[in-house]
């Protein structure tokens, strides 16, 4: 039996060492550097205590990145969930070519986020503007990605276009777990479609709602590829996300230590939001 146990230890030890070196160690290093003033390439650096953390709270660029990221993440998460639930309900109805449509709606999920971003970049600058002009909508007759106030909407559109795919499939899986006998019973009782949705469908897919909300929110908070492909954070810094700020500041701006402090805060924020979301949404699940 001890020989068996030894084998089990050998199965995990190499993985633990690698995981420690490439995951835990960098995370600890990040925390360590966040208390220094290292620029990322020089030989010398000093400890500065909590100075980086204090500066972050008064840094306009950081505040700006948080504002953009949260605005983007909340709007994107809500839109993705509403639209994908509607599509899933449609796909779950008795319609022809269901598998064909399901296949199309899932297609964006398998595509590179970066390349999809580049494709939309072109559409925003050269195609949607044609429609804007023809329809006489002034806001869309110029490239919205070049507009300080509207660029973030462009990024939302791309993120929603691609994000719907995954959530739709999950909602569809959830809807298919609901026994049809429940609907037959509610039909006999004369319930309206609206009542049926809120009293039967929605409570029964609550676990799927929880997963979808948490995953969509987490993905949106980490937005990076779309920013690179669509705006590069601009115009100005109007669409700079937190990840993008850490990347550009840390690698190109000589702010290695400072952005490390920023990423520690970012980690804490994401962890708190994930836990709160899970607690709140799972609490609702049991209520219903």
């Amino acid at each position: 039996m001890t020989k068996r146990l030894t084998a089990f230890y050998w199965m995990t030890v190499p993985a633990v060492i690698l995981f420690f070196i490439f995951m835990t160690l960098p995370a600890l290093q990040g925390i360590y550097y966040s208390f220094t003033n290292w620029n990322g390439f020089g030989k010398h650096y000093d400890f500065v205590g909590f100075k980086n953390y204090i500066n972050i709270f008064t840094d306009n660029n950081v505040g700006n990145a948080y504002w953009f990221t949260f605005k983007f993440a909340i709007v994107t998460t809500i839109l993705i969930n509403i639209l994908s639930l509607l599509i899933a309900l449609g796909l779950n109805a008795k319609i022809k070519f269901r598998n064909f449509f399901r296949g199309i709606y899932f297609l964006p999920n398998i595509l590179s986020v970066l390349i999809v971003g580049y494709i939309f970049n072109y559409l925003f600058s050269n195609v949607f503007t044609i429609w804007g002009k023809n329809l006489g909508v002034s806001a869309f007759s110029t490239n919205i990605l070049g507009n300080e106030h509207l660029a973030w909407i462009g990024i939302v559109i791309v993120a929603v276009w691609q994000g719907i795919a995954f959530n739709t499939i999950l909602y569809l899986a959830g809807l298919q777990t609901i026994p049809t006998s429940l609907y037959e019973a509610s039909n006999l009782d004369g319930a309206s479609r609206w009542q049926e949705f809120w009293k039967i469908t929605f409570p029964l897919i609550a676990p799927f709602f929880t997963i979808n909300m948490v995953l969509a929110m987490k993905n949106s908070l980490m937005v990076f590829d779309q920013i690179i492909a669509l705006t590069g954070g601009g115009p100005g810094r109007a669409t700079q996300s937190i990840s993008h700020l850490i990347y550009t500041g840390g690698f190109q701006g000589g702010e290695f230590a400072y952005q490390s402090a920023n990423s520690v805060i970012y980690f804490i924020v994401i962890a708190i939001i994930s836990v709160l979301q899970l607690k709140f949404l799972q609490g609702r699940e049991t209520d219903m």
Partner: protein
Amino acid sequence: MRTKTNWLVLGLIAIGTILILFPLYMTITIALKNPEEMTRSVFAIPTTFHWENFRNAVKMTNFFQAFRNSALVTLCTVVLTLLTNSLVAYAIARNMNRKFFKGLYFYFISAMFIPFPIIMLPIVKLTSALHMTNLVGLTILHTVYALAFNVFVYVGYIRSIPVALEEAATVDGAGTWGTFWRIIFPLMAPINATVGILICLSTYNDFLLPLIIISDQNMYTLPLVQYIFQGQFNTDFNLAFASYLMAMLPMIIIYLFAQKWIINGVTQGAVK
């Protein structure tokens, strides 16, 4: 009422698919046009197919090299992940009553909450110090980072496999390793399909990790190539779109053939 086709819903769903397919239609048609045809109409189907866009894009971006790199990293990551992550999860799943293994379980899965940017800056220093700024390094990192999610998924699955099977094998004189490879691993085929599909998609399409650790242009992966050549594509959109299309095509072709498995795999991975 529910027995016949709902035409209103069908109509709305069909309109929705147009919104999904429109950008892809544009990608394909633009990749096949030349600038002259573009000025005539951006939307029209090309009258003559300009295959030279693809030839030029292949030459300019060294497509086959990048494709080989992407395919190699993706394939090796999938194989390595399936073989190693399942083994780790097996050891954990069968010893959850022991403090060490239970601790490991939570150690691995807690990393799911760590956003990549927090390790992004130090990992660049670490990989260059260890001479891992290459395709091998990329494969190792992908495999190690996959542990967090995969341990979670695998452990759940393995615990549903009855221990009696392994006990019988032990009585017959099989060792722990032999039991795993000959009895447990084959039983894990359905969950391996799910994990394999998820890893394949995320590795092939990953941009951030290659961006920060790969600097040798012979090792560029497909998404990285699109980023690097943005400046050189300049306003030659036909060339750029030919390049985008070629980069996405391998995954689209796989999807056309394995659509059902991919959708099921992704669903299983999330529901677990």
